[in-house]
């Protein structure tokens, strides 16, 4: 059974390459050379460059990009006082994030001293709401959380992803790396089977990217809306018939850190637009 699946897939990978017309394939993509000698790839390319013009054109125009509707919502929340401390997130956030606002989007997930572990941007926001603002945490995939994370990541748009994986972050990094290469689910596949071994090829009608997360939160046509990195992880896991983990699970934060590191050097594109 598994053999049959793999054969079908392999066939599609060859057949599909015929109608590839993307910046990655025509040589106009921005290709980053990894600086870390332990990087598994010789080139780092944004998911943007694996998409056709119909998708890229929308991301290129902030007005046409429907993710901006969610960013607008986040900007409103950002300046709104909420909770018992009488503060808005704009007043409390930098203290919680431990780095300047325009840097946050390029360095998270990150080891946070107050949390005592590597946490994602969503977790910084909720920690800040609970401890500094005296407000209720947002649900992970709520419009409020997506709006705020998209708004914050956008403040780093254009700067280069630069997550730290040494020192206190190294345990989470190693965990993330292990998960990335671990075969899971009924199809018995790892992240690497698609996003390391086969990026630039088609899997059925989908062009595989390197799975970089520099554009998240991202508006996806499949979702008709904006979603988080963890939502994307969950989708991938469902595709390979594995049981997805809950949003914010420690393993997903570790995987997010590792995946972000694989894209170190790419421009932050949030909020991106994808198929």
């Amino acid at each position, binding site marked *: 059974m598994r053999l049959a699946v793999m054969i079908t897939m392999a066939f599609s990978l060859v*057949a599909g390459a015929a*109608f590839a*017309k993307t910046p990655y394939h025509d040589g106009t993509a921005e290709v980053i050379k990894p600086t870390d000698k332990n990087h598994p790839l010789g080139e780092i390319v944004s998911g943007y460059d694996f*998409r*056709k*013009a*119909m*998708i890229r*054109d*929308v991301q290129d125009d902030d007005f046409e990009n429907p993710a901006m509707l969610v960013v607008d919502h986040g900007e409103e929340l950002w300046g709104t006082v909420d909770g018992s401390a009488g503060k808005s997130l704009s007043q409390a956030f930098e203290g919680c994030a431990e780095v300047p606002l325009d840097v946050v989007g390029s360095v998270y997930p990150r080891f946070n001293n107050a949390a005592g572990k590597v946490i994602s941007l969503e977790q910084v926001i909720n920690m800040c709401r609970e401890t500094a603002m005296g407000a209720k945490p947002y649900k992970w995939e709520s419009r409020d959380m997506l709006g705020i994370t998209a708004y914050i990541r956008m403040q780093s748009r254009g700067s280069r992803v630069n997550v730290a994986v040494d020192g206190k972050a190294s345990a989470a990094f190693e965990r993330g790396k292990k998960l990335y290469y671990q075969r899971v689910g009924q199809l018995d596949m790892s992240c690497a089977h*698609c996003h390391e071994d086969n990026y630039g090829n088609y*899997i*059925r*009608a*989908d*062009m*595989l990217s390197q799975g970089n997360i520099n554009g998240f939160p991202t508006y996806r*046509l*499949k979702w*008709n809306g904006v979603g988080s990195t963890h939502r*994307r992880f*969950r*989708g*991938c896991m*469902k*595709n390979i018939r594995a049981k997805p983990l809950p949003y914010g699970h420690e393993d997903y934060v570790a995987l997010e850190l590792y995946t972000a590191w694989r894209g170190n050097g790419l421009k932050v594109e949030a909020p991106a637009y994808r*198929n």
Partner: protein
Amino acid sequence: MKQTKQFSTISRRHALAMLGAAGTAVFAGVPAYADGAAVAAKIKGLTGGKSVGEGTIELDLPEIAENGNAVKVAFSVDSPMTADNYVKAVHVMADGNPTPDVASFNFTPAMGACSASTRMRLAKTQNIIVLAEMNDGSFKQAQATVKVTIGGCGG
């Protein structure tokens, strides 16, 4: 990708052949699609059976859409858009969706030009038909095919 196309008759066989060639999957569970005949009937209703001319309508549609949930459809109709010579309405139709109608637009000379752009849902590979109605009661039409690729993956 600009595609400037003139009117041609869409046969059912032709539409099916294109579907096959594109190797696409269709949405499961949708009971019926419009087809060339439904679009033809719709056009007959709009034109009252008048003949449709082959004026210049430029369509801007992707050749391949990586997802059918939001496919750009833009058109421009060559017209002076003056009080006595303008485009009154433009109807956008699709022959492979559950119903043929996508959108229609009413224009006025105040706009100075006749064009519009929106985003539509396409259930599968199909033809997009754009019918323009002039203020003198005449009609022009153009069409193009969009291949919709629906992956088995993509989370």
